[in-house]
C-alpha cells in the first residue's frame, strides 16, 4: 500500500483514564482539601488506571467505509473521540489525510430557544462548515429535513422526529474527505433512517472515507466495505463485513446454550422481580440445540415476583443471526382477559412460537422485562441461543433448493390464490382454459 492511498493511519493508539476509588474523587476544591486534611497520611489517594484503548493500529484506505462494532465499553467511542481530536491519546499516533468532519452526536449545539433557521446556522458552524457553505446548502438542508413550514419556530416546539431530522440534515451536508460517525442513526423513524443510510452510501460512493460505529448489524453489513470488531480496548477482528459481523454476533453468544439458569447472587432484575431461568424447549418439554421449523418452540421464563405491579411486562426479543430483532413478545400483548395472571413468588410463563414461522439459522433470545413505559427491570442482552432447521414446507421446490438461503427474517408459508378464479390452482391440474 502506498501512502497515497491511505486516508487514516493509526499506530499504537492508547488512552488511559484515571479512576479514583471511593471518596478519592473530588469535584470541589474544598472536598479535595478536606479529604487531604482528614487523611494526612494516606498521601496518594487510591487510583487506578483504566485503559480504554490499548495499542490499536490499523490503516484505512481512501474510499473505504469502515464499520466499527463491539459491545459497550469496547473502546469504540474513545477511538472516535481521539480521531476527532476531542481528546488526546495517552500513547501512539494517528495520521489523517484530508479534511475531517465528525458527527459523534446528532444535533450538538442545538439550542431549544433558537429557531430552526438559527439552529441550522449554529450547528453548521459547529460541525466546521463555513458561512458560505451553510448558505449554499441551506435550501437543500431544509428540504432534506422537511421542516420548511417551521423554519422560524423555536426548535423546542418541534416534535422529536423533526428535531432529529433537522439535526441530521445539517450533518448530511458536510463535505469532508473523512467522515467519522458515531451511533447516530439509532434515532428517528425507520423511513428517515433509510434516508440517512442512503446519504451515507452516497458519501462513500464519492470516494470519501467513512468511519462508522453502529450497533445495527444490518446497516453495518449494507454500508461497510470493511469491519473492525473491538473488545476491551483492542482490535479483535478486522476483515470482510459479512464474516466479522457473523463472528461478532455468535461470539460470546457462541457459547450460549438453549437454557440459562441464574444463581441467587446474579439474578437479573430489581426489587420487583428477579429472573431465575430462561430456556427454549420443544413440544415435549425437551431442551434442544436445534429445532425443526415445522414444530412449535416454547420459550419459558422463570422468575420470582417480590413486589407486584400492574405495569409489569414480561417478554423477550427474538434476534436472528444478522442481529435483526425478528419480534418482541410480552405476556400482556393480547387483550386484557387473555393475560396470564402473575402471582407474588415463583412464576413460570411459557410462550409458544408457532411452527412455520422462523427462518433457518441461529436465533438468540434476550429477556426484556419492564414496568410499562416507565423503567426497565431486565433489559437483557441475548442470553440463550438455538438453531432452526428450515423444513416446514411440503413444497418440492423447498426440498431441492438450499434451505439455508431462504431470505427474510421470518419464513411463513402464506396462502396464494388467483384473483377472480373459481378455485385454487392445483399442481398437475391446470384449470380448463378453453
Amino acid at each position, binding site marked *: *500500500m*502506498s*501512502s*497515497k492511498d*491511505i*486516508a487514516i*493511519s493509526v499506530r499504537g493508539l492508547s488512552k488511559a*483514564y484515571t479512576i479514583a476509588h471511593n471518596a478519592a474523587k473530588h*469535584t*470541589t*476544591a*474544598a472536598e*479535595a482539601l478536606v479529604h487531604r486534611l482528614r487523611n494526612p497520611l494516606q498521601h496518594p489517594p487510591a487510583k487506578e488506571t483504566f485503559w480504554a484503548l490499548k495499542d490499536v493500529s490499523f*490503516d484505512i484506505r*481512501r474510499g473505504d467505509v469502515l464499520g466499527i462494532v463491539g459491545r459497550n465499553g469496547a473502546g469504540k467511542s474513545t477511538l472516535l*473521540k*481521539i*480521531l*476527532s*481530536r*476531542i*481528546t*488526546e*491519546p*495517552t*500513547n*501512539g*499516533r*494517528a*495520521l*489523517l*489525510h*484530508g*479534511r*475531517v468532519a*465528525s458527527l*459523534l*452526536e446528532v444535533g*450538538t*449545539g442545538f*439550542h431549544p*430557544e*433558537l429557531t430552526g433557521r*438559527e439552529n441550522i*446556522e*449554529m450547528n453548521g*458552524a*459547529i*460541525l*466546521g*462548515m*463555513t*458561512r458560505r457553505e451553510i448558505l449554499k446548502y441551506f435550501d437543500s438542508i431544509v428540504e432534506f429535513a422537511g421542516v420548511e413550514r417551521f423554519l422560524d419556530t*423555536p426548535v423546542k416546539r418541534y416534535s422529536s422526529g423533526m428535531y432529529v431530522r433537522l439535526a441530521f440534515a445539517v450533518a448530511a451536508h458536510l463535505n469532508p*474527505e473523512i467522515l467519522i460517525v458515531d451511533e447516530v442513526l439509532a434515532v428517528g423513524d425507520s423511513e428517515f433512517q433509510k434516508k440517512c443510510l442512503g446519504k451515507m452510501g452516497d458519501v462513500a460512493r464519492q470516494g470519501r472515507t467513512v468511519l462508522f460505529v453502529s450497533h445495527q448489524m444490518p446497516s453495518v453489513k449494507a454500508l461497510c466495505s470493511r469491519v473492525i470488531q473491538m473488545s476491551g480496548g483492542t482490535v479483535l477482528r478486522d476483515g470482510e463485513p459479512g464474516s466479522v459481523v457473523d463472528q461478532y454476533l455468535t461470539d460470546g453468544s457462541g457459547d450460549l446454550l438453549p437454557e440459562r439458569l441464574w444463581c441467587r447472587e446474579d439474578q437479573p432484575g430489581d426489587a420487583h422481580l428477579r429472573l431465575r431461568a430462561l430456556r427454549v424447549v420443544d413440544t415435549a418439554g425437551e431442551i434442544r440445540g436445534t429445532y425443526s421449523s415445522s414444530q412449535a418452540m416454547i420459550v419459558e421464563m422463570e422468575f420470582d415476583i417480590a413486589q407486584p405491579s400492574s405495569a409489569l411486562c414480561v417478554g423477550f426479543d427474538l434476534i436472528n443471526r444478522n442481529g435483526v430483532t425478528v419480534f418482541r413478545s410480552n405476556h400482556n400483548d393480547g387483550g386484557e382477559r387473555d393475560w396470564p395472571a402473575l402471582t407474588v413468588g415463583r412464576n413460570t410463563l411459557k410462550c409458544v412460537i408457532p411452527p412455520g414461522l422462523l427462518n433457518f439459522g441461529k436465533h438468540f433470545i434476550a429477556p426484556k422485562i419492564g414496568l410499562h413505559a416507565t423503567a426497565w427491570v431486565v433489559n437483557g442482552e441475548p442470553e440463550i441461543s438455538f438453531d432452526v432447521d428450515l423444513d416446514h414446507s411440503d413444497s418440492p421446490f423447498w426440498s431441492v433448493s438450499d434451505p439455508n438461503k431462504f431470505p427474510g427474517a421470518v419464513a411463513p408459508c402464506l396462502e396464494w390464490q388467483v384473483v377472480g378464479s373459481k378455485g385454487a390452482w392445483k399442481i398437475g391440474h391446470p384449470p380448463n382454459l378453453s
Partner: protein
Amino acid sequence: MTTAPADITSSYRPVAPPAEQETPGVVTVIEPKSGWAALDLREVWHYKDLLFTLASRDVKLRYRQTALGAVWVVLQPLIAAGIFSFVFGKVAKLPSDGVPYILFAYAGLLGWNAFNNTLTKASTCLVSNAQLVSKVYFPRLVLPLSTLGGTLIDFGVAFAVMAALMVFYRIVPHAGLLLLPVWLLLILLLAVGVGLFAAALTVSYRDIQYVLPVLTQFVLYASPVAYAVSAVPIGLRPFFFLNPLSGVLDAFRWSLLGTGSLNVGAVGYSALFGMVAFVCGAFAFRRMERRFADVI
C-alpha cells in the same frame, strides 16, 4: 505505509491543501502532547465563523422571552448608578469631582461592567457549553473569545446612554475621550486573562463559579467605581492602586467626564498587569485544555 508524507505538521492545525486535488493535502497528526503549547491564534482565526455564530447565539438568546428585552442592558447600570448616587452621594456625601453623582457613578459602572461581564461570561463558558466541548473539536479558545461579542454590544448600548446623559447634563467631552478605546482594551485584556484562567479551573473545580462573584463584589468596592479617587485617604492610595483595575477605571472616567487627573503611573501598572494576565491566562488555558473533554 511506513513512509510519512512530506507535509506533516507538528501541530493539530490542518495545512492548506495544495492545488492538485489528487492527493489530499490536509494532514492531521494526532499524538500525545505535554507541557506548554503555542497559542495558535491562526487556528482560532480559521474558526472565525464559529466564533461569530456563537457570539450571535449568545446575544439572541439572552433576551428571548423577556418582556423588556434589550432595555435591561441599560436599566441594570442605571439602577445601580442610582443606588450608588443615593448611598455615596446623598447619604455619605462623598465628592464627585464636580459632576452630578449619578453621571459620575454611571461612568464608573460603564467601565466596571465591561470588566465584570467579560470575566463572568468567559469563566463560565466552558461549563455551560460542556456538550460542545465533549462532542466536537474546535480550538477551545474560541468559546471564551466568543463571549466578547455580547459584552461589546452591551457596552455599545450602555455607552449610547452615557452619551445621552452627557448631553442632558451638558458635559462637553475633552480630548481625553480619544483614549477611551485604549482603556477599554486594557480592561478587556485583564478580564479575558483572568477569565481564561478561571474558565479552565472551573472545568475541574466548580467552586470557582461561587467564589468569583464574591471576589468581584470585593474588587468592585476596592475600585473607583462608586466613589472618586479623591475620596480615598492619601495614605491609603499606594495600596489602593495595587488593585490593577484602579488606575484604568480612574482613567476611563477621566476620559469621559474629565474628573480628577490622568495618573500615568497607575495606568502603566494596569496596562502591564493586564497584558501579563492575558498572556498567562491564555497559556494556562492552552495547557489545561487537553483535559477538558475528559473531565468536564
